[in-house]
């Protein structure tokens, strides 16, 4: 049919509507938080300083050694920066979902479900707070320093892989937030499990894979595919040998991993929302 060529697919319209709802709800929360302007700056700066301390720990380690698991300080800083940047972006965009358990318990998801917009979009924008951008900024600084020190030879493919890394890493961490939130429909205290994947995983990804036990690293490739966030693309970008022992094309397979994660998270979310039971009144 000729018509189908010009008409965008249904998911396109739905995604656009969802993003619009996200923007509207996030805007409401931003407006509501303007009342507390000073606390905004205090927490933003506070967040940035706390996460910078992580990096100080790593830098101090390098006082006694020149490499960590075979990686130099700027190379580790690359892992640190990309891990924190992607987690930070996911946290900024959908991080509020880890408080969903509270809304499930008190039944206030009801009010979200009566609005004509995707529940996931509205709940991701719930309590949207710009102060979460603190982590993003701080990790960008570390990443910038690392790239400056590394003096990489930026070819077209490398630029592309770098951009893909940021997007796919954000999607993988974002999927972990969504899947974690989906489980909160069943067990309202499931946030702990999700935190160990997101925050725990991001801390792991700050260090080279070679410092971890082999089984843990394989789990991060074939289990919860966190290795695709930055470890595998970094091998290509930094031109390092593979300490993991996986097929070479895995270095470029982050989009596939991200797609699988997003699909799994989407299914979990659907199951979660359909099992929502509100509260008796």
């Amino acid at each position, binding site marked *: 049919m000729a018509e189908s060529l010009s008409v965008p697919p249904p998911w396109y319209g739905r995604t656009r509507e969802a993003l619009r*709802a996200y923007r*509207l*709800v996030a805007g*409401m929360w931003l*407006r*509501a938080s303007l*009342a507390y302007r000073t606390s905004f700056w205090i927490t933003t700066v506070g967040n940035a300083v706390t996460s910078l301390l992580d990096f100080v720990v790593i830098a101090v380690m390098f006082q006694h050694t020149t490499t960590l698991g075979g990686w130099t300080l700027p190379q580790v800083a690359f892992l640190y920066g990309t891990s924190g940047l992607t987690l930070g972006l996911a946290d900024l965009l959908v991080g509020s979902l880890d408080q969903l358990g509270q809304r499930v318990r008190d*039944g*206030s*998801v*009801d*009010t979200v*479900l*009566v*609005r*004509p*917009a*995707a529940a996931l979009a509205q709940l991701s924008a719930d309590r949207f707070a710009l102060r979460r951008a603190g982590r993003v900024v701080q990790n960008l600084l570390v990443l910038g320093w690392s790239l400056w020190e590394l003096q990489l030879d930026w070819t077209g493919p490398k630029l592309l892989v770098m951009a893909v890394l940021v997007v796919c890493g954000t999607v993988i961490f974002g999927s972990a937030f969504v899947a974690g939130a989906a489980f909160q429909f069943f067990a309202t205290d499931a946030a702990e499990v999700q935190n160990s994947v997101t925050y725990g995983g991001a801390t792991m990804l700050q260090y080279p894979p070679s410092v971890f036990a082999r089984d843990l690293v394989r789990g991060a490739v074939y289990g919860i595919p966190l290795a695709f966030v930055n470890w595998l693309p970094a091998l290509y970008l930094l031109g390092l040998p593979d300490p993991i022992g996986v097929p070479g094309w895995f270095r470029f397979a982050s989009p596939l991993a991200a797609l699988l994660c997003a699909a799994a998270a989407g299914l979990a979310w659907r199951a979660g929302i*359909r*099992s*929502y*039971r*509100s509260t*008796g*009144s």
Partner: protein
Amino acid sequence: MAIIEVEDVARTFTVRRKVGRLKRERSEVRAVDGLSFEVAAGEMVGYIGPNGAGKSTTIKMLTGILVPSEGRLRVAGADPSRERVRLARRIGVVFGQRTTLWWDLPLRDSYELARRIYRIEDARYRRNLDRCIDLLELGPLLDVPVRQLSLGQRMRGDIAAALLHDPEVLYLDEPTIGLDVVSKNRVREFLAEINAESGTTVLLTTHDLTDIERLCSRVMVIDHGRVVYDGGLEGLHNVGGSERTLVVDLAAPEPDPISIPGARVVRMEGPRQWLAFPATDSAAPLVAAIAARYPLVDLSVKEPAIEDVIARMYGGGTTEGERSLEGSVAGA
């Protein structure tokens, strides 16, 4: 044409209860159990029953918040839980116990969000908002943060928020709970006007049976998740054998009670007498009989309180402790 169709719908909840120190027991609550009814477009239906009868659960299923365990629901031709987003544009919901307004922001901001989320055209938005401001007296409240509003003000604000997009169906779950008499009256008048003017279908749950008396020609009584009565107010009186009251103002005080067949005097005060007669009987022959024998100044007929009607209907057996407010309705 039916705009709401409910067919053999059931909804169960699994509840886990702690028994002793570590053991947990699972049990099933059938909140709604084989529920069937239809509501025609433009109808205004009262949906009443004791606490825990399944009223809120029904409304949540009709909204798409809850997925039914069994049976089939259609609202405006859509399956609520599967087509929730599409349906949400066509329905309005007010939960008396829960606000959809933005707590920290002025009332106006919540309406602005509704305008954009529902994509309400400017002219229509203006018209609907003005009507709500006018009828619900919201003018002075628009710039007040919602958390500073009184319960009655907030409820009026919530009702307006549910109507800005001209919904075809409006669900109200205890919209008058905790309101003072003035607010209650304002809300009732507003709902009557919306129903009459826009032909909005209204399903109204309430603990205050005066709401039903004023607004609804049809009542559904549910208990243990099933419809136990569906019909007009008169029919409900019929089942309950309740009585209406004829208030008669005579030209001069009579020393004796008016004596006519089919009615008995229950109260006398100067020239005014109160006569009780079966709610199912017509008042006209009584009036004629009285007018033939006594000089009349004025007459009025008072409906019985629905609380009493339902109480009679169920013979007054409370089954569970929690059924306090309308406890006598339980145990059909």
